[in-house]
């Protein structure tokens, strides 16, 4: 940059530190008897093509970031996030039962499902709305997306292990426990 004179430097500093655009009069009130307009003109030339621009809005002047660089002022950051327990349960129910309404999901889970849970699943891109059930109130249906299959490495929903597979893998153990308990109770009642 050309070394600026005192008037240019003063106006430059003032506009930089100002909380809002300043009129020529208010600039003059700070910097005293200098040619404010000449200083502004010089600054406009100095900053032409730089990352900062001197701009005039109505009768007021201020510095702002060059318009073509606005995209730099934001940074995108990827964050790995994991689904909550409720989220993964609802996703599993949709995958196994699709298309399925929220009421049906709740009936299967045995727990009320927060709206937010379905919103999060739609945000993941793994669940999509899939029409409406022809019932009173026409409830929305949910189904999985192709992204769902891709993410979980499935070629189709039929690849999901069935109930028998789950049982064989011990994933239904809690049921067996419940059943055994029931039998124990029945036996005890018999022996009375």
């Amino acid at each position, binding site marked *: 940059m050309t070394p600026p004179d005192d008037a240019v430097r003063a106006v430059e500093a003032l506009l930089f530190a100002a909380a809002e655009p300043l009129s020529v009069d208010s600039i003059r009130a700070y910097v005293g008897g200098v040619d404010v307009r000449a200083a502004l003109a010089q600054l406009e030339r100095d900053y032409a093509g730089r990352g900062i621009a001197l701009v005039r809005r109505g009768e007021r002047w201020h510095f702002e970031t060059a318009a073509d660089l606005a995209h730099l002022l934001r*940074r995108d950051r*990827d*964050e790995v996030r*994991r689904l909550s327990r409720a989220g993964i*349960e609802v996703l*599993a129910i949709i995958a196994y039962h699709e298309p399925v309404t929220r009421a049906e999901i709740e009936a299967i889970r045995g727990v009320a499902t927060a709206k937010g849970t379905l919103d999060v699943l739609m*945000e993941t891109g*793994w669940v999509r709305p899939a029409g409406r059930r022809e019932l009173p109130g026409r409830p929305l249906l949910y189904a999985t997306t192709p992204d769902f299959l891709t993410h*979980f490495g499935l070629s189709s929903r039929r690849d999901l292990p069935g109930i028998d597979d789950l049982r064989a893998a011990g994933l239904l153990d809690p*049921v067996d426990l419940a059943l055994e308990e029931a039998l124990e109770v029945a036996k005890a009642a018999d022996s009375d």
Partner: protein
Amino acid sequence: MAEPEQLTLDLEGWEGPLDLLLSLARAQKVDLRKLSILALVEQYLAFIRQRQTLQLEVAADYLVMAAWLAYLKSALLLPRVADDEEPDPEELALRLQLRLERLAAMREAGARLMARDRLGRDVFPRAAPEGLRTIRHAQWRAEIYDLIAAYGRVSARTRPVMHVVADREVMTLEAALARVARLVGMTLDWATLESFLPDGSGRLRKSALASSFLAALELAKQGRVELRQQAPFAPLLLRAVR
């Protein structure tokens, strides 16, 4: 000696005895390294004595310092006795001097720090920066195991009743009632109970036999069928009531 105007100062004006000592040392107007500790001690003691004769309250730590300085003064004035028990008075004086130098250095440093061009007072950042934004993109992750384990968990919680029922082949009483009532009207003759049963495996047949027997009794009670049996364990016959 203490200057008269200092006597009017309140003790509260000092940050403790060391601060007071430093103020008195400054009054000697010499480099702290060339300070006369003896003169300083005398000034301090005179100052405290003056306060006491004015019957003003003197804080305990100022009095403790006065007692210690009185001891130092006598040690400095009296001829040295070679005695390892007693600390060397010169060393005590030196220690006091070092402490004063350090406090003076920090006080001066603090003043120089405060006098710098300070952000927001002398130099300014932009008052209204556009600001930078970080846009966070969620990368959702879940494993297939999590998915099927979750389904197992849900099933475990809610499925037991469903799967017990599905596993057993039964004919309910309602079904038997309907079936027997329908079939019995299609023939005029006596027919065995077994002829009303659906085709099927052993377990279903047993269930159907029991239900159909109960259905036959129920229909007889309603007066819609007649029952006949020649002997115990003989075939049970039924016929619609005309």
